[in-house]
């Protein structure tokens, strides 16, 4: 169990061919709804809240961009893991099959 004061930082490379676009951003915000921790994503000097679709879109993170995930609060470890998975996903698991 994480203590609330601990801050986790992890780098992740965007795997989706089309970058962090609206659908990925929406999925990320939905993921965050299941967690109560505070998570931000940073690209260079720009840092945004992972709970805002607008913020995520503003990162304009294309395929191959490196982002730094920063989380603190309960369940941070789990949230970061899920976000990493989501961002690294190249979409091949949903290649159009049902």
């Amino acid at each position, binding site marked *: 169990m994480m203590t609330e004061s601990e801050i986790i930082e992890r780098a992740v490379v965007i795997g989706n061919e089309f970058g962090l676009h609206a659908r990925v951003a929406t999925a990320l915000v939905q993921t965050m709804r299941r967690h109560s921790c505070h998570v931000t994503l940073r690209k260079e000097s720009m840092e945004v809240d992972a709970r805002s679709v607008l913020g995520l879109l503003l990162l304009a993170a294309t395929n191959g961009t490196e982002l730094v995930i920063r989380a603190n609060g309960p369940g941070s470890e789990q949230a970061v893991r899920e976000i990493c998975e989501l961002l690294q996903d190249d979409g091949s698991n949903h290649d*159009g099959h049902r």
Partner: protein
Amino acid sequence: MMDTDSFGSAIISGEIPTNTMIKGVGVSVGIGIGQVVLMERLVADTCPCRILSPEEIPDEVARFEAAVETAENRLRTIRSSIESGHPLDDHSYILDAHIMLLRDKMLYEGTRQSIEKGSQNAEWALSEIMAKITAAFDSIDDDYLKERARDVHFVGDRVLRILLGVSSEKKMHQLPPNSILVSHDLSPADTAQLKKESVLAIATDVGGKTSHSAIMSRSLKIPAVTGLEKVSRLVQTGDTIIVDGSTGLVIINPDAEMIFRYRQRQELLRNYHQSLLAYGRLPAVTRDGARTIRVLANIELVDEVDIAVAHGCEGIGLFRTEYLFIGRPDLPTEEEQFGAYKAVLSLNKPYPVTIRTLDIGGDKIASSLNLPRETNPAMGLRAIRLCLNIKDVFKTQLRAILRAACYGHCRLLIPMISCITEVHATKSILEEVKQELSNEGIPHGGDIDFGILVEVPSAVAIADLLAREVDFLSIGTNDLIQYSLAIDRMNEHVNYLYDTLHPAVLRLIRQVVNAGQAYGVNVGMCGEMAGDPINIPILVGLGIDELSMNALSIPIVKKLIRSISYEDCLELTHQAFQMQSAQGIHDFLEKWIFDRFPGDYFLSQQ
């Protein structure tokens, strides 16, 4: 694109000289003459700023939250007023997106924090956050993202108005008759509430031909001009104004003579259309009797068949089936589709009905399919590519079409074919479905015509190979032009390059027609190009067999075909193929028609 400067405070308009003309972009055809109703500009820049005392803060936060809730409820009401089958049905998803944006953390929490921590009043806090977000989006070099800045403004403006107690909505509902709506910009939610009866036309400062509001005004058949830059600063409510959606011209304070002239033009348009209807009943035979062109209609809804028949269609050249699939959480059942196809077939008997199978990107249909979002959907998993990928959905559609084929002359049209493998794959699924229906003892039309939509340049290049495999070819010019000229029609920076009469386009068409003739296969055309009089002589000269178009264009196209001779068309085509530029060809074709029939053909809607 968002122009932050243009949100500056309103210019006090002085006396505007009579007949002041400004030019914008005509986005929805027709003429409106009436009195201006000026919608206030976005209010973001005129917000009062005030530092709150600590005890005021909780109430201010509550006031902000209440305003967001009111805005949300209002958007939901507008959203639900668009019923299935409403002309704006296809556009309602944009309202869903706006509802979601209202609660976006950046906008919502950001504003709350500015109130709580910055002691700013709600209007100030929100407008500042909006400006920040807009500026940030604007600095990104991505058109899709830049457009999101406008969404933020539409949504934020709605909340601001509620906070300020200035409603823009009252006007939308209570517009006096004969209103011409003038505004800086019109949000999709604004447009969705317009009453066609009271709004004669729309004029706005910003927006392009492909903005949501432009598309919506076309669906509502309200004449509209956008991109006028400053019209909302020049006019006042009550001013007389003429909006010509065909030419993109707006005339402020017209004098009696100008009004008279435009009334005449309006009347002419109306009578002209009336007198043309008679031609709809006649066959499209060239004057020398050498060629007969079958003229058909493009439709989307079963309800459109009546109007198509009234205008003299000889069948349906393109029945778009997408409307059955979009704007709903689930997929249409086989029975539901069967009902729609059967109805259209029965109503057109004995004429053919060409049913195009699902031509759509994965992002537009049932979310249950869980398809990935694509940044370049035009070149992505759509149309037949998607159908071959979601075989169950495709088979259900084919079953419904095959069953309906018992009730008329049915033709199957497969969109976006780019190689022969797709034809083979489609045919094998079709055979599979036929077999299944036979096994189940369900009656179906076994010998329906199989055709493909030629709209990808590679299909043109192998038109000879494809022609051997099909019963008919149909050229889809909208996509063919877009793909062959590498121009995104929706991109306002390049759409000026979109040229129907580009020599390359004409050569591609010729290649398809030649392939069809070589293998005895009918060649039709169903894009917008087919319904515009200026293109008709050259299409006849190229030897096209069928033209399918918007029902309203049928009478004028038939009239024109009946007035020209095939021999002249051949000569014209020969000459046009010597020319080098789209503009040159356009001018030549226009003059050719004008010299023979002055004033007859360029009054109609495009």
